[in-house]
């Protein structure tokens, strides 16, 4: 036992002196979580629309009032153009998402009942174009309706109904049912920040587990292991100590990432820290298991790193770590990754579900970890005892 812990302690000490390693295992996930979390947050980003109103006629005031109406503000942000020529470049340069030019003869033609067109410049983003177009259409629909009414039902019809288009608070035209609360469909009941915090914790814990295999290979290459083998104590304890060292790094990783995201990014990790820790531990075990199995075949640090990197990256990708709604494209393939079960478990904990809701995920994760550990134990001699 003493040998085990002494080895583990010195391993941890050694890791703590590798600054770039600490940066990669702890700082990099924090940076990635922040960037993806803030890029994909569910908050609506209004479309910026640049408008040049060349009209100086009677209807100018009502058009201006429409653009600065509070109701459209959540979806459309209005910018006034100084001159007509500014509109198109502003859209081309992505300074605005949409451009509108209202012609100088707008008022006079409308009042005479002649047709007239607003010129529109759609931008790069389909969704934003749609938002601006629907807002413009709704305004023009009302205007056109009043004019048609005047034509068909007589001159009083349109003006008499002034204000009829304003949706009444008591009698809305459309009842909107929000089924998902304020949660996002894509991120399955958690926020974007929570989603990526969980995903990248799991991905980097897998890498943390890989340290065990790398360290064993290194010490074998340097001949340290061979020399230790001659010592009159249990060799297996020494090897387990080295593996434990990487588990301690992973534990540290989990603690720092969880606490940092909790207090700085305001990520809600739920309350069940015991289960959270168990999932982290199992994930590390899976990482270590996979890495040792790869190392037993690959036999060099470089190849192990490359192969493990490809495995970990593709599992993260398939389980939705880069494109959150990837299951739309690839179906249930994510269920074949370790990350899927760990992520599902973490997300359930974040939602504050009771443990029975995620015990199945944790059980599957534990089973994968157990199977991989057994295989890793069988293959371990190939890593540590070659030519010994």
């Amino acid at each position, binding site marked *: 036992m003493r040998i085990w812990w002494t080895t583990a302690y010195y391993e941890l000490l050694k890791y703590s002196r590798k600054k770039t390693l600490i*940066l990669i295992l702890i700082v990099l996930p924090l940076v990635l979580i922040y960037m993806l979390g803030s890029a994909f947050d569910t908050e609506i980003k209004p479309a910026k629309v640049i408008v040049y109103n060349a009209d100086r006629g009677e209807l100018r005031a009502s058009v201006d009032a429409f653009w600065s109406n509070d109701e459209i503000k959540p979806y459309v942000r209005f910018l006034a153009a100084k001159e007509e020529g500014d509109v*198109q470049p502003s859209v*081309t340069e992505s300074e605005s998402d949409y451009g509108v030019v209202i012609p100088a003869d707008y008022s006079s033609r*409308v009042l005479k009942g002649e047709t007239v067109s607003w*010129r529109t*410049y759609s931008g*790069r983003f389909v969704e934003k174009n749609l938002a601006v177009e629907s807002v413009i259409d709704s305004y023009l629909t009302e205007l056109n*309706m009043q004019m048609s009414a005047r034509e068909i039902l007589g001159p009083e019809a349109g003006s008499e109904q002034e204000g009829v288009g304003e*949706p009444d608070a008591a009698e809305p035209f459309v009842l909107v049912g929000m*089924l998902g609360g304020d949660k996002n469909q894509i991120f399955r009941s958690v926020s974007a920040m929570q989603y990526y915090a969980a995903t990248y914790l799991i991905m980097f814990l897998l890498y943390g587990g890989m340290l065990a295999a790398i360290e064993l290979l290194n010490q074998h290459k340097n001949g340290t292991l061979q020399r230790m083998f001659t010592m009159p104590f249990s060799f297996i304890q020494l090897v387990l100590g080295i593996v434990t060292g990487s588990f301690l790094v992973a534990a540290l990783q989990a603690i720092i990432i969880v606490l940092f995201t909790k207090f700085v990014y305001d990520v809600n990790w739920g309350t069940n820290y015991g289960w959270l820790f168990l999932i982290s531990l199992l994930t590390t075990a899976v990482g270590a298991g996979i890495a040792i199995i790869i190392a037993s075949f690959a036999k060099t640090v470089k190849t192990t790193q490359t192969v493990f990197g490809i495995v970990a990256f593709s599992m993260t990708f398939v389980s939705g770590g880069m494109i959150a709604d990837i299951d739309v494209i690839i179906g249930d393939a994510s269920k074949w990754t370790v990350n899927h079960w760990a992520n599902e478990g973490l997300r359930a904990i974040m939602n504050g579900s009771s443990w029975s809701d995620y015990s199945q995920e944790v059980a599957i994760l534990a089973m994968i970890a157990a199977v991989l550990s057994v295989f890793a134990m069988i293959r371990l001699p190939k890593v540590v005892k070659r030519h010994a």
Partner: protein
Amino acid sequence: MPSIAIAIQLIKRTVGSRRGLFLNMLLPAILLSVLTGLLSAQGQQAVIVVANADAGELGSYLTAALAREELYDVREASGASDEDVKQQVLDGKADAAVYIPSDYTVSLLEGKHVPAALYRMNVQLWNASLATTLEAETMKLSASAGMVARAEGVDKEQMLPLLQKLLAAQEKPVVTTKHVGMKLGTILSNPIMIGILLMFVMMLVSQSIGFVMEDRELRTMARMYTAPVRAIDISLGNFLGSMAVGTLQLVIVLSLTYFVFQYDPGVSYGYMLIVLEFFLLAAVGLTTAIAGLVRDSRQLTQMNNLVIMPSCMVSGCFFPLSMLPTFMQKLANFLPQKWALQAIDRLGGGGSVADIGLQLAILLLFAAVLIAFGSAVLRPSKLSR
């Protein structure tokens, strides 16, 4: 010329092995083409289920108005109840659902508002647009019906024909919108393909600069300096080698994706290669600058892991820049990837080389400043370790 020989050696070391050839040439090409396949198959149209229970005509009028919008995939669910369509949204089978009640036409003709129902999971820009469209259309029906109902001298039988006439008149509106054709590139709004290519270029460059660093550590470089070759030739050889490896990768990857996997970004092969060549230069600069800051090639690999992924994200390689917080968008100005993407986007929008002069100049500036900063890497180290 000795520089050429040094450059050729560097090429051999990076892509001379089967492993190097696979990881640096084939893998990026395969990955890029898989992504093209995946992303084009996606074709995301929001699915909207419309249940029209209305016995009268105005319900179908409303459905037709929604179906006009090309960006929605409107599916009519005849006979479905309010609960049915709600469940479809909850199950993720539809992105939004609209339910038109059975007394819709009758009530409207009596001058009463009857709300249609819209179900969605949460507020997003596209479904807010759907709500706005739906609101405008229902308002139109409601108000038109109201006006007809209140018009003088109209009896019950005349109401529906008159309303239809009024609605038909609105089909030919007085004020319309006219789209001005904009020639915009699609790269900035959908950058992932080019973004990943840029990432691979940076990775490969970091590898070849890593070899130069290795030479320096193992004193191979110091020994090279004993040969009757000018120092400038050696530095130039290493620099040319890094550029040549990158160019080789670009040509092979681009050829495979363009000609074998039929990827068409709207930019011709030649123009694409020109911009990427400038980017390559900036990437060599960036990597040498980083190499100047670290001690050995191991650290360089680790630092690159830290630099490449986050900088690609900030500069809009994987998702549009406009999705990021404003301060990060400004930060992106200091990264070469942003300018390369912008240049390619302009070309895609029908621009010529003259239109991207600024972007190319900025990439050159990056290269000049950074290479000057990191030039120590290309010389043997003076300090003994």
